[in-house]
């Protein structure tokens, strides 16, 4: 008997020590990682930081971005159609006009002079991922499904990497930058309280394209298209400018641009802030070898025309092409020095392969977080105190067992959450409350059973024994039912619902252990060594 009891006590102590150790170790680890933290963390800091608090408790920024994968298709289509054009010239295929018909499609007109076999062969070798159908004198090209998928995939992956690079320059501790679903990225920055700056850095940089200006600038679309008979010419688009038109001082200016970009942010090698010839802030950039080739050919063919620098689908400036430019250039526009700095930083950290749109944005100010924690803690402590008091008043000595078991339950839960780096959020606290409710319930079930047995006239020893064994099936049932449903919530739920499920699953596992195993051990310690038990304090 006594050996069995001590075995149980040893196991409980091991679990207790392991939980505390896991919590403290996690606290030490997290305080050390925190770049902004104090230089010599105290034990108090370690204990405070054992569990990662969610943004709703700590304050910070939560963003959900969508990668505009269509942008990436567009780049691919630009690339493919310009390659086709070049090959046409180089190999004299006799192709007609190459027309962009959509973001991810284009048509090529063929005629009797066209070498169709050569064209088919060229497509096979050079335009992998593209499929085409012949429709009379036109070949209609579209992106094949597997290619679309891999392009989108790559774009999202690259966007995640790029955002990570940028966030790293901020020195945020424990940022979360993760892909979600097909084209979404979740960014969580605890403790950051400057949403505007963060959003600018992550996004505004986004998508740089250099395009040929066909007409403009002018203050409205109609005048822009006048020389084209009011019709939008093929392979062109109207893009809004960022500057105010000096002549008409109208609020907006428009440019007519060639749809196909000469080079994009993808071709960028490096960028740094500099100044233009009037000593205004600007950004100088250099291109990778392949991009430089393309840009060289493009500029030499278009000398004296204007080149639009399009950032996030807005024309920043449209300087004249004076000479062939190949591997470097300068972006001018009405930049403040700060803006030029940020633009260079973001271009440098890797250009985004596609535009980003904010789908969701949550900021919790540090004051609110602090307030939530203080009040939540106060309420939880008071609630726990009330529970403890009631248990002791109602079940006397046995009530203390339950209180011990509950405290141990909370410690195990915190230890496990800390060990797995789980985040405690508001719904997590809900899970915590349900756990405490169910853990106390298990004890109540057992105690009520023991009382029933005593009323039926059983000896105290048998009553305790029977109380535990009879309540056990019920406890298993209640716990399994809840865990089963929590598993589904974990699998299918999003953010907060998931956090709830995690706390609940861990808490229930701990509760099975503490309510049944631990409180029985305490009973054994109390009554197990005596030959005869006259009375159970319950």
């Amino acid at each position, binding site marked *: 008997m006594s050996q069995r009891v001590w075995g149980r006590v040893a196991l409980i102590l091991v679990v207790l020590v392991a939980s505390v150790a896991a919590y403290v170790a996690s606290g030490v680890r997290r305080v050390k990682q925190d770049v902004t933290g104090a230089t010599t963390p105290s034990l108090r800091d370690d204990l405070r930081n054992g569990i990662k608090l969610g943004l709703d408790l700590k304050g910070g920024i939560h963003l959900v971005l969508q990668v505009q994968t269509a942008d990436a298709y567009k780049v691919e289509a630009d690339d493919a159609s310009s390659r086709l054009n070049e090959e046409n010239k180089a190999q004299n295929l006799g192709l007609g006009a190459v027309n962009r018909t959509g973001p991810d499609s284009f048509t090529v007109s063929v005629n009797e002079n066209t070498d169709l076999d050569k064209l088919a062969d060229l497509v096979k070798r050079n335009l992998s991922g593209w499929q085409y159908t012949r429709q009379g004198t036109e070949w209609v090209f579209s992106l094949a499904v597997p290619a679309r998928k891999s392009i989108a995939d790559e774009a999202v992956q690259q966007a995640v990497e790029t955002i990570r690079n940028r966030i790293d320059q901020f020195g945020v501790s424990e940022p979360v930058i993760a892909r979600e679903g097909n084209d979404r990225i979740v960014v969580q920055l605890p403790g950051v309280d400057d949403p505007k700056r963060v959003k600018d850095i992550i996004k505004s940089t986004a998508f740089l394209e250099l395009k040929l200006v066909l007409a403009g600038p002018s203050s409205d679309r109609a005048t822009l298209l006048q020389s084209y008979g009011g019709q939008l010419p093929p392979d062109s688009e109207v893009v809004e400018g960022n500057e105010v038109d000096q002549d008409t001082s109208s609020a907006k200016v428009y440019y007519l641009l060639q749809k196909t970009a000469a080079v994009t942010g993808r071709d960028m090698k490096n960028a740094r802030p500099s100044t233009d010839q009037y000593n205004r802030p600007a950004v100088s950039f250099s291109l990778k070898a392949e991009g430089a080739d393309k840009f060289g050919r493009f500029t030499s063919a278009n000398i004296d025309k204007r080149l639009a620098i399009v950032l996030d689908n807005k024309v920043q400036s449209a300087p004249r092409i004076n000479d062939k430019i190949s591997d470097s250039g300068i972006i001018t526009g009405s930049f403040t020095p700060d803006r030029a700095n940020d633009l260079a930083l973001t271009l440098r950290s890797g250009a985004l392969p596609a535009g980003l749109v904010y789908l969701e944005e949550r900021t919790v100010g540090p*004051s609110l977080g602090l307030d939530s924690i203080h009040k939540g803690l106060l*309420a939880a402590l008071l609630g726990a105190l009330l529970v403890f008091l009631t248990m002791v008043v109602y079940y006397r000595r046995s009530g203390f067992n339950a209180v011990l078991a509950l405290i141990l339950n909370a410690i195990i839960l915190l230890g496990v959450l800390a060990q797995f780096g789980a985040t405690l959020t508001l719904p997590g606290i809900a899970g915590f409350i349900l756990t405490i*409710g169910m853990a106390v*319930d298990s004890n109540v079930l057992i105690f009520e059973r023991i009382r029933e047995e005593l009323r039926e006239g059983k000896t105290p020893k048998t009553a305790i024994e029977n109380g535990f064994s009879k309540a056990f099936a019920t406890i298993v049932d209640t716990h399994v039912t809840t865990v089963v449903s929590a598993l589904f919530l974990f699998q299918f739920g999003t953010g907060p619902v998931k956090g709830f499920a995690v706390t609940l699953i861990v808490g229930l596992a701990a509760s099975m252990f503490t309510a049944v195993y631990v409180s029985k051990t305490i009973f054994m310690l109390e009554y197990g060594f005596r030959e005869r038990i006259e009375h159970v304090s319950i």
Partner: protein
Amino acid sequence: MELFKDTNIDFLGVKWICIAGSCILILIGVVSIMAHGGLRLGIDFSGGTQIVLKFNSHPEPGKIEKILKPLNIGLEGVQRYDEPSKDEVLIRVKQQAREGRDITQEVFNALSRALNPGAAAGRIDVNVQGRDTLAAALQNADPDNVAGQPGEASAAHYRAVGEAIVAHRSELGLYRSPAEFAGIAGASRAVQAWLGQNTVIGPFTLFSSANVGPQVGHDLRTKAMWAIVLSTLAMLAYIAFRFDFKFGVGAIVAIMHDTVITIGILSMLNREFTLVVVAALLTLVGYSMNDTVVVYDRIRENMRRSRRDPLSKLINDSINQTLSRTVISSGLTFLVVLALFLLGGEVLNTFALTLVIGIIVGTYSSIYVAAPIVVIWNEWQDKRRLAAAPARAAGKGASGSKKSGKR
């Protein structure tokens, strides 16, 4: 101490009254929801923007509304938030037709321009700017003269100072006068003087803001729904496997009963339906299920012990036997939730309220709804079996009696 000793209350005797009462409650809830034009969805589900600001003096929602109206952002309303003494205001803006507009920033800028002329002169607003901006400005000005040392030390030094400035602001709620700069732990006299000269103290600070686009709102809605439906089905399956199908039905009816009534009461109180409420509903589903399973377990145990008693007596005895436990457990959890409701602050308030309602309804339903459903179902089955018995005896033989022999 014992409150319930050998009780023998006829719970099932009033089953029809209770079911009628429940139906009326459900009906009232449904009517309330319809009268409100559907559930009042929070921005998690409906999309839109919600901003909570804390002011340094009594804010006037009407005045704020007037400032924001010309922005044409689809302003839904400006109202007081939390206790009036806290000077907090909640601004709600409708979901935008197009993704990508930064409503929070537009609101912020407009209020800043109208209420805080000092900020327009290019001075930093200590109540609005984050630690990074403060740190950068301080590093530029370098009031502590640390620039002579290597660059990294200077950046780290001012970052810590920036953090201290924001931390002190969090403790205060917001800065009200330059005298409060003296309380910033970790800021030297020079920094405090610099703050006094080069910053303005704006009239408000950002407590929280959330902006949910239409796509995310839709996704959150469907995902939350699927999570609830699937987890409920999983519980039904487990209970059907562990007990009997009719027990499963009783449990699910009880859960739906609790959820619908709770949502109905929330609607009557004009509370918003948010993700946090969903978490609270999940909590109470788990809780109510727990209660129900305890009663079921006892019924099963009693069924094994005395098979001869009619089911309704067995069930009534089982409810009586577990009554003490039901009341104590629910009462304890109720205490915790009540503390959370009264003291937990505005953020946890609706969450706690949902649980306060839910625990009362859930406890009631596991006594008066879940078990009676099993009895009613059973009586109905018996009747059908009796009616079908002659036909069956002629046809298939004894398949009916075989089934009733199970458990």
